[in-house]
């Protein structure tokens, strides 16, 4: 998937940029002034480009002991509950998309940037656009869960604990 692959590339870019700054500053007396902005920007890209894939493979953080028990004892009710949860999650991602879209339009119109002029600046609108598209993709994946009901049988351990 394109979003996933590009999100993955950003991780590599992140490692490269920060190391470049360390070396350029330490050895060549030429720090890269955009390091902070590029790092911030890549965080948004990593998170929102990867999130749909996390949802697709069913690895979003949850505690599904009760749901698993329900599925075994009362398969129909269990499925109904799982669908309800995915529907609510889809609704939440729609809310995110609805909240972010006007932000994107505004940033696009005003060409708003972050950073310090003359030092380093980067435009806001790509950030907002990525979040909007990500929220749309996440919605699609939650809805797909309802129609396929797969991918949520593996243990969920993504919050890194």
């Amino acid at each position, binding site marked *: 998937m394109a979003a996933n692959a590009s999100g993955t590339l950003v991780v590599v870019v992140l490692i490269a940029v920060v190391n470049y700054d360390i070396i350029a*500053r*330490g050895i060549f*007396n*030429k*720090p890269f*002034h955009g*390091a*902070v902005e590029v790092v911030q920007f890549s965080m948004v890209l990593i998170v929102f480009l990867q999130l749909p894939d996390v949802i697709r493979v069913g690895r979003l953080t949850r505690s599904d002991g009760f749901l698993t028990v329900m599925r075994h004892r009362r398969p129909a009710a269990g499925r109904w509950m799982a669908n309800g949860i995915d529907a609510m999650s889809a609704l939440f991602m729609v809310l995110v998309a609805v909240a972010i879209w006007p932000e994107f339009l505004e940033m696009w119109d*005003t060409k*708003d*940037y*972050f*950073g*310090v*002029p*003359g*030092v380093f*600046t980067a435009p*806001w609108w790509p950030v907002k656009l990525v979040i909007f598209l990500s929220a749309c993709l996440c919605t699609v994946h939650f809805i797909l869960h309802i129609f396929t009901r797969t991918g949520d049988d593996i243990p969920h351990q993504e919050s890194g604990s």
Partner: protein
Amino acid sequence: TETIKAVVIDGYPARALWVKEFTEFFIPEVDRRLAETGNYKMDWQESYGGTIVKPKGVLEGIKLGLGDIGIVTTIFHSSKLPSQALSAVTPFVAADARAVAKAVDEIAKEYPAMQAEFDAQNQVYLATGVVLDTYQVFSREPVNSLSDLEGSKVAGAGMNLRYLEGIDGAAGVRGGLTDFYNMVQTGLVDHAMLWPEAASTFKIAEVAPYMLKADLGAVNSKTITVNKDYWEKLPDEVKQVLQDVAVEYRDHVAGIAMDRAQASRDAYVAAGGTIVEMSPEERKAWAMSMPNIAAEWAKGLDDAGQPGTEMLQAYMAKLKDAGFEPVRDWAAEAATN
């Protein structure tokens, strides 16, 4: 008596100078004045330190109505609030927080640009605050002149990195205030630009015992604003009190900043620091080495249909009237450009 609820927000913690004075000066003063007529009473909810917004989020928080009154740190918003950079683009003019606060605030009220920028963010401008007296240069090794800065690394943040552009081989290194101690200690940088109070708070004297008193100048960084929808519903009496007290708060905070600056310089010397006065010729040389960032700034605003050059001229004139002779007349050059 009608009670009016007000949610005050800042992302900085309650112990920060300007936040503390909002609690201890602004709020009681508003309450006192309203009590004189007894028509209205404020019900304050103070939410600081990230409980509702982070420091960079105050502008948006007020815009969206998550808070009613906020202290916006304007240096984070070069893009949305370009005219607020006024004092940052005019170094070597006034190292006095009170004078700069007053001049910037008057410019804000006499010209439409600053208020219009806040208006576009759905908020109403009340007053400008200045919380630092002036940037100085703190060094590991003894410094006397501009040539000591040549070929060296200097820690800075935001606009002040541009002050180094004309110095041969000097490289600005970006850092947060909390990183400066380590940056100097490890030799990652040779100098750091910060103001004496911060130097004292972060014990800079331990690692950078030489302060070059360059008096780069005071910079405005805080603006009190009110959510526009909230403002429109306020009774005129309350509006008037808020506006008046905001101006008093402006002078009150700037005064405290100046007192603290003196105390901090004393503390720096007591902690083993040496203060080296930069000679007028050297200051002049530094100022002249810089690109005219004030003219760049004014042109940017002019191009956007705002009276940038006029604001710059008026601002310089106000400080001159207040007795501050600029080392470099940024406005004169801007006018001829």
